[in-house]
């Protein structure tokens, strides 16, 4: 019997820890007839460190956010580009397929066996005070993570404040920031419903966030071939879709929690003034993306086109 150690982060109640890992654990244990047992371990360090902890065999499996390691992961930003207009599940499946077909050969995940790729739900605008147009955001103090939302923030002319997500609540309560761009699920899990009382939901959101789940290749190689096949058979696209679905569920729960808490939610419809403004704002970002990955030797334009086509026609 082999123990497979998964290093995780975020609170145990988060969908990734309450649904995704337990479900996959069960799949693995069933597929290997109980020969491989999965254990989850917390508190091993910053999420960005997980890539290296798995590569060096400190743990066997983990997951992380590509945006935490700028410079190393560029192609994965394809799925983060604005105006994808799909659920996390659809985006995750497209993310996986396009990675396998176009991006895998660029080997950005060197030293790791990628077992799943997924995105969080669409990022939305969560504010302390209401806004009526995107122009209202100019000069506002907004917490920005990296990658595509940083670019959007710059185009909006916001005053960027850098901070880890768990700090957002405190900073907002104290007025250090006026708002944050983050998925709907955080209304519940970061308890933003108490402080970010005004949410603008753009159709399809502003951006997505790219995550990977990965395994130590030596661990995989040391397994009995039968078990290796079994684990891989419950990973890949199947795992990616399941993870995306769980994060979608988290967003639904977040929306429900926000509604129950009486948060003022503005649902923008396609063609509304805010939507038009956002479309205008993001012009040229595709080209900027192609430019940024020009040195990777892949057809980024074809990949992004196919990614959008898969995501939008999913199911």
């Amino acid at each position, binding site marked *: 019997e082999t123990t497979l150690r998964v290093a995780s982060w975020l609170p145990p109640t988060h969908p990734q820890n309450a649904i995704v890992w337990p479900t996959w654990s069960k799949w693995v244990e069933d597929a290997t007839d109980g020969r491989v047992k999965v254990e989850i371990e917390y508190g091993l360090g910053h999420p960005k460190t997980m890539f290296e902890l798995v590569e060096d*065999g*400190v743990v066997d499996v983990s997951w992380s956010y590509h945006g935490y390691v700028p410079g190393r992961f560029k192609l994965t930003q394809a799925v983060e580009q604005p105006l994808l207009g799909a659920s996390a599940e659809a985006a995750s499946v497209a993310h996986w397929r396009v990675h396998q077909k176009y991006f895998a050969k660029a080997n950005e995940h060197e030293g790791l066996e990628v077992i799943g790729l997924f995105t969080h739900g669409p990022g939305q605008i969560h504010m302390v005070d209401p806004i009526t147009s995107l122009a209202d955001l100019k000069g506002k103090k907004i917490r920005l993570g990296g990658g595509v939302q940083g670019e959007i923030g710059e185009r909006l002319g916001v005053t960027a404040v850098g901070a880890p997500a768990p700090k957002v609540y405190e900073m907002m309560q104290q007025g250090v920031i006026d708002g944050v761009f983050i998925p709907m699920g955080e209304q519940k899990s970061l308890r933003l419903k108490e402080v970010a009382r005004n949410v603008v939901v753009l159709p399809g959101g502003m951006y997505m966030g790219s995550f990977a789940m990965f395994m130590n290749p030596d661990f995989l190689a040391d397994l009995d071939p039968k078990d290796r096949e079994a684990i891989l058979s419950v990973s890949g696209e199947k795992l990616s879709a399941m993870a995306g679905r769980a994060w979608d569920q988290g967003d639904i729960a977040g929306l429900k929690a926000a509604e129950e808490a009486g948060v003022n939610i503005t649902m923008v419809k396609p063609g509304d003034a805010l939507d038009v403004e956002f479309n205008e704002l993001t012009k040229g970002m595709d080209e900027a993306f192609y430019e940024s990955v020009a040195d990777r030797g892949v057809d980024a334009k074809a990949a992004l086109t196919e990614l959008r086509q898969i995501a939008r026609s999913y199911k």
Partner: protein
Amino acid sequence: MITALTGFAILLLIIVVIRVPIAFAMGLVGFFGFAYMQGLGFDNFMEFRWNGALSMAAKRVIDTSQEYGLSVIPLFILMGNLVTKSGLSHELYRASYAFLGHRKGGLSMATVVACGGFSAICGSSLATSATMAKVAMPPMRKYGYADSLATASIAAGGTLGILIPPSVILVIYGLLTETSIRELFAAGFIPGFIGILLYLAAVRYVVWRTPEAGPCGEKMEWPERLQALNGVWGVLILFSIVMGGIYLGVFTPTEAAGIGAGGAFLIALYRRSLNFGTLFDILTDTARTSAMLFSVLIGALIFSNFINRAGLPGDLLDLVNSLDVAPMVVILVILAIYIVLGMVFESLSMLLLTVPIFFPLVQSLGFDLVWFGIVVVVVTEISLITPPVGMNVFVLSAVLKDVKASTIFKGVTPFWCADIVRLILITLFSSISLFLPELLYR
């Protein structure tokens, strides 16, 4: 369980008997313990794949020494050093002395209140101890206070502010358990103030038992008292900027450290108490203390990786689950476990390791998670002043090089007892914590 406990025992042996510096002792035991969990034995020492354990330790060094949130440590220490150098501490204490000096242990009481106020704002026990050591220690010595009482009131006073909002630890607890953070903040107020009152009582107890530990001074008349107040405007302005800035949301507690240091720098310039030489001394002194604290923190994190991998948290849960007793007894067992862990762990890593494990159990027993949060934070506060690894005590003995940690540990015992009294009160009477949240939000 056996592995983890053996690890604890070896750690205690090499820090107490072999006298290896704590930072390195924790790092070494954590490293070899982790390697042991990965299959290291005496027979495979040469061909063992060391890279896993080495990477684990290396990443802790790399990440911890570049962690944004930890910038409060050097910056608040810097602020304390600047305040001291510009002579403000003497004036602050002249004023305290004018009002409280004629009482037995009066300056210790003033220190407890000042530490409570300061740590409430800056949210870091370690930074409070380091700052107030510079500010409060020289006057207490001047007025003949025993080192044990003087240092203990600073070390213990520094723990008070964790509970008084804003509190980083309460936010982390709230996020781990999905508990309302503003309810946690509200719940912390009354227990925080009870802590101050009980510490004042502890000072009274000490001077009642040994009057020479905190001698009375002369009683001053009102005109003299008011005149003594004249000198403290600088400190008042600085503390108002730091406190007001955080409460009004002008800056975060992390940034407040930098602003506080900058403000102290300006005040020191204004009072002409700086030249290049003294500024250099202040900066290097701060950097040395910070480097020492970072080393201990890194060691503690490497050690906690091992304890975690050895499965101690899970084993503890099984132990508690296997007891067939009343829910309140389960809570008491959990608290006992925290107190034992607190002897060796740094407060934040203890919280991160144990809360995810215990809170589902506590919730299933029907307890309020806001209340449990306050209880847990009070216990982790205690860990900062309990031997052998009490971080606040080490900070003090690092800042005050001529006071031994053992002296401080001895002096801190009455405060430790006061904390236990508070813990019992808060555990048995949940309304002490829940009164404000229920009044405000429920």
